[in-house]
Structure formats: C-alpha cells, structure tokens
C-alpha cells in the first residue's frame, strides 16, 4: 500500500530555504507563459470560454508521475505533461496527433 504519495511532501525535512533577493523576480520564458495561457483557456477560467479540462484532472496527472520524473521536471514541465495527458484522456488530442506534431516541431528545430 502507498500511504504517502510522492507529491504529498508537507512536513518532510527539506533543508534550508534559500531566499531570492528582494528585487529578484521569477523570470518566465515564452514557452512557460504559453503553457500557463493554454491552461487558463482549457480550464475555462476566462469568461466566455468552455471548460475542457479541470484543475483536478491535471493535478491527478501530476501526482501520477513517477517520483524521479516529478523531481527532475520543472514546474511548467509538469504542467505541460498534465495538459497533454488530460487532453488525450478526454479524447481532444490523440497520442498519434501529438506524436506527429512533436516529430514535426523537432524537425523544425534541427533545421
């Protein structure tokens, strides 16, 4: 039996918290902003948009990640994985469509 899921870390020893300087802010890259925007649109948070996925489905997908993958991925990497996983489960995307698009984008980057 799995008593404590890997993501459920509250209360575990974590070492020292490193604080950023007062003027430092998180600097998001363009892809991270896009992932955030996609999540907002798909979750129907913006008025007039339809809810195609729920935050709970996305959380579940993140919680199902193997511990090693969970630790190795950045915040928005986990988000994009959860969006893809949920869209496939919902039948909005197929794995094949995603696979073909990934090959296409990878080819574009190699050129």
């Amino acid at each position, binding site marked *: *039996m*799995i*008593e*404590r*899921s890997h993501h*459920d870390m*509250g*209360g575990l020893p974590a070492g020292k918290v490193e604080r950023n300087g007062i003027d430092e802010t998180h600097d998001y890259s363009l892809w991270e902003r896009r992932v955030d925007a996609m999540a907002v649109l798909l979750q129907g948070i913006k008025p007039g948009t339809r809810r195609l996925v*729920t935050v*709970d*489905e996305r*959380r*579940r997908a993140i*919680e199902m990640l193997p511990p090693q993958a969970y630790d190795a991925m950045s915040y928005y990497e986990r988000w994009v994985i959860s969006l893809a996983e949920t869209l496939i*489960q*919902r039948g909005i995307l197929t794995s094949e469509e995603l696979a073909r698009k990934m090959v296409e984008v990878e080819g574009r980057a190699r050129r």
Partner: protein
Amino acid sequence: MLAAKYKVGEKVKVLKAYPLGHIRTPYYIRGCVGEIERVCGAFANPEELAQMRSGLPPLPLYRVRFRQKDVWPDYSGNGADVVEVEIFEHWLDRV
C-alpha cells in the same frame, strides 16, 4: 448543495485513511483532531472531478484549525501556534 453538518467551534477528527486517487486532504493532517474555524461554502468533489465526473452535488468545505503541537509530536514553537487546513466534509468525523 448539502447543508453543512458541522458548526464553527465544533471538534472534528480527520479520517486516517490512505485511499488511491486524487486526494486533497494532506497526508500529515490525517488522523488529527481540530476545530471548525469556518464553513467555506460548498464545492464539487475534487476526487470525482479528477476522474472526469461532475463531482456533484457540491460538498461542504471547512477550514479546520489544528494546534501545531497536536500535529507535530516534536513541535518546539509557541504552544498557541496553529495550522489551518481546508478539508471537505466527507474527510471529517465528529469527536
């Protein structure tokens, strides 16, 4: 929407259970006794939403206040310190 079963100030015990699925009750608070700080309203059950079901009818959600020294056996801070956790009604039992 279901009427809230617990009132502000009432003592409740968090279910000490470890089911599968998407659970919003943190591991560290399961089995602890606290008191109702407020009724937050009623919301669709996230455990059901996570499985692509409606989660309806909405379930009452409470903010529950726990004494830190009741949560962490080796807590060395001020005895009056508390931690508040938002917990759905089906995770709570009357003490």
